[in-house]
């Protein structure tokens, strides 16, 4: 119990640290949200109007007072409202986070469906022509920036073949078919890079497992090669692969910016970039905190699981 409490306390401390850092960093970088808000038409605003808006937005208050207000809101799980149109930040995140998660999940499923079998095949045929071809293809895939892949996909499948829309978003409830068609290309774009990671990890892990003594023993016992691979090699190789996939998914949570931009997918990453451009303090703080909280939560779960699986962790 003490272990659990300690981990929870550390997690809360981490979130508080991130919240404080993001609060301070935002106010240290140049760029005034009120000034930007009133001059987005390219016409400079009246300074008196800027001052009034700053007062209305609470930006004229002393930093400590702003910090106290911010922390007070956080304790009530209130992320505040957008500086541009007073829309609740929490509501917007609640709308956008599932879209990004959906995109990441779809990309991961595609990446695993392609990368894992190919990794196994490459490992089983180590040094063969197929292994070399697959490894070369993986290197090529990995060197492709997502905006190049995305743009090429748009050119071929939207503009030339006209099979899918060039980009955009339609809610699933509004039109499921259109929603999935819109999801396809951004998911494939992420999956191309991600499948390479899955492929390489699977190949390396399977190769390592194939050299283990117990695999040799299984073969020596006369088990069918297919059976050895399925029952003994694959199962024991998947641990590191799953770990890497998990880490990659976590990274993608705030890292789908380019794909969301290229395909006009209104997720969390694009929201964060726009909020930073506008110096929209509540939005940036809210998004970073939610991403941070998710990471911390996932780490906490992993830590607790380790403790369940390995008693030495909770007593050490």
């Amino acid at each position, binding site marked *: 119990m003490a272990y659990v409490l300690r981990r929870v306390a550390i997690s809360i401390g981490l979130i508080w640290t991130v919240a404080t850092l993001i609060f301070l960093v935002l106010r240290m*970088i*140049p*760029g*005034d949200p009120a*000034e*930007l*808000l*009133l*001059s*987005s*038409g*390219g*016409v*400079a*605003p*009246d*300074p*008196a*109007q800027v001052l*009034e*808006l700053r007062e*209305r937005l609470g930006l004229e208050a002393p930093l400590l007072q702003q910090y106290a207000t911010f922390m007070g809101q956080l304790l009530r799980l209130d992320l505040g409202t957008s500086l*541009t*149109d*007073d*829309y609740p930040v929490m509501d*917007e995140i609640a*709308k*956008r986070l599932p879209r990004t998660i959906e995109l990441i999940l779809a990309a991961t499923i595609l990446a695993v469906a392609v990368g894992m079998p190919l990794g196994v095949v490459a490992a089983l045929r180590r040094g063969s022509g197929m292994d070399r071809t697959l490894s070369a293809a993986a290197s090529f895939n990995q060197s492709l920036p997502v905006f190049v892949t995305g*743009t090429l996909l*748009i*050119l071929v499948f*939207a*503009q030339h073949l*006209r*099979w*899918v*829309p*060039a*980009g*955009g*978003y339609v*809610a699933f409830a509004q*039109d499921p*078919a*259109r929603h*999935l*068609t819109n999801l396809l290309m951004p998911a494939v774009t992420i999956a191309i890079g991600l499948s390479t990671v899955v492929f390489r990890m699977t190949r390396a892990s399977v190769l390592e497992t194939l050299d283990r003594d117990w695999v040799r023993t299984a073969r020596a016992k006369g088990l069918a090669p297919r059976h050895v691979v399925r029952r003994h090699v694959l199962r024991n190789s998947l641990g590191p692969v799953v770990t890497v996939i998990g880490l990659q998914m976590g990274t993608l949570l705030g890292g789908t910016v380019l794909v969301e*931009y*290229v*395909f*006009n997918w*209104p997720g969390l990453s*694009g*929201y964060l970039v726009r909020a930073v*451009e*506008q*110096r929209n303090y509540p939005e940036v703080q809210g998004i970073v905190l939610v991403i941070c909280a998710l990471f911390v939560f996932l780490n906490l779960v992993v830590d607790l699981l380790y403790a369940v699986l390995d008693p030495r962790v909770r007593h050490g």
Partner: protein
Amino acid sequence: MTKDTRNSAALSRRGFMGAGAAAAFAATSIAERASAQGRDRLVFALSSYPPSLRPWANTGTAAGTAKCQFLRGLLSYGPKGEIRGELAESWSSDSPTTWTVRLREGARFHDGEALTPDAVRRSFELMQDEKSTASLRGALGALIDRIEAPDARSVRFQLKKPSATFVYMLASWHAPMISPRSNEANPVGAGPYRIADVERGTRIDFDAFDGYWNRGLPRTKKLRMAAYADENLRVAALDAGDVDIIEYVPWQSYDSIERNAKLAMDVVDGPFMYLNFNCVQGPFTNAKLRQAVAYAIRREDVVKAAFFGRGSAMNGLPFPKGSEFRDEATANHWRTDLDLARKFLAEGGQPNGFSCKLLSTAQYGMHKDTAEVVQQSLAAIGIRVELVLPDWATRVAVGNRGQYDFGVMGSAGDFNDPDSMAQFLDGSQTPNYTRSHGYNNPKVNELFEQGRAELDVARRKAIYREMEKLALEDAALVGVAWRSQAYAMRKPLTGFANLPGFLSFYSGLTLENVTMG
């Protein structure tokens, strides 16, 4: 054996079902794409999602384009850029300080409220309220003395001083009327469309307002405005048929769109790029050195590098082509002349050149590319330029504080009248990043004031001629390039017009005339 057979049968069944589902899905999506733009729905691709839909705040072109679908003012602009009656059917100046507008009979707001003089007065009062975010708040407050209602359909504006530009304020899309039953946060307008649905950050759906004063309009009953921030994706979406019309066509795509038989483009020279200077500290406090810069810039190279040749050199002040106030001789004052540039350098006490910093932004390619060409141009006369390229937010903050030697800016006037240049040259106004820092020539300020107060066109021309001469001597605004501003659309679409000059950004007003062929 039995197990294998069962498995293979199951796989086969799954495979069959999967293939069937995939085929159905593909068929659905293709059918969906084929009918994405029916004749009754127009899809307009905005360059960004409007930061806010507050009626009187200036929150950019995309926001203005969206807002003018559901909000309209007393006056607006016709397809050729002419001022026309909107919610007012006529307007007249009874004296230099009195303007009377006659409200359109039957005009009403989306909530059914009639447009009355009281509603007009309330809208103007809200615009001038000290808490208002109206971009015209200061200008209207400085100008309007009182608003009267001589009868049930007339509104009389008593001004504190004569104003030739008051009609432009009435026509501005930052001065729409809102229903007396609504407020700034949740405005109800009287535009051709009413908002039907909003997916914040993604799209705004509009339905035609059947009570719009201009009977028969809008011609397309449904309008969707979807945000496509990536300029290349906007073009791809137009080409793929996802959208019907796009704004801010990227210059690099002009050629491909012109070659595409399914697409059309409407292009005008409207906005412009220019240089502004720090006139308080640093080398450019010396007007001779500003002149040296003005004569050394290779403007044609800027047009080629930043705008793919789609624009033209701006060798003087931003008097739009076709404006009755434009003088072709002075409009070509600063032709590239390196000898003359060196002469001014010498007169400015820097015959061997000097080092300085040029503020621009890496966030917008046209700003960065312009800065790079300026840097190369000035190297030819020995001015060593270091580029400072922060993001846009920082550029605005740094510009407002005057923390730069000289800077690249892009802008456009609010309306096609020389008075719109006051924001770039009138030093009596509060400092801002669009104007040279610390520049203040009382004579220039006075001429702007005179031009604003003068209603006679011939006399106004003479005033602005004199102002132009002084401003060219001061070189506090050095023109660099007019840039093309284009809308591209699918061929069956008719009725849209790109308004001339600075009014290009107002072109969304003509969406009410669009039909899908």
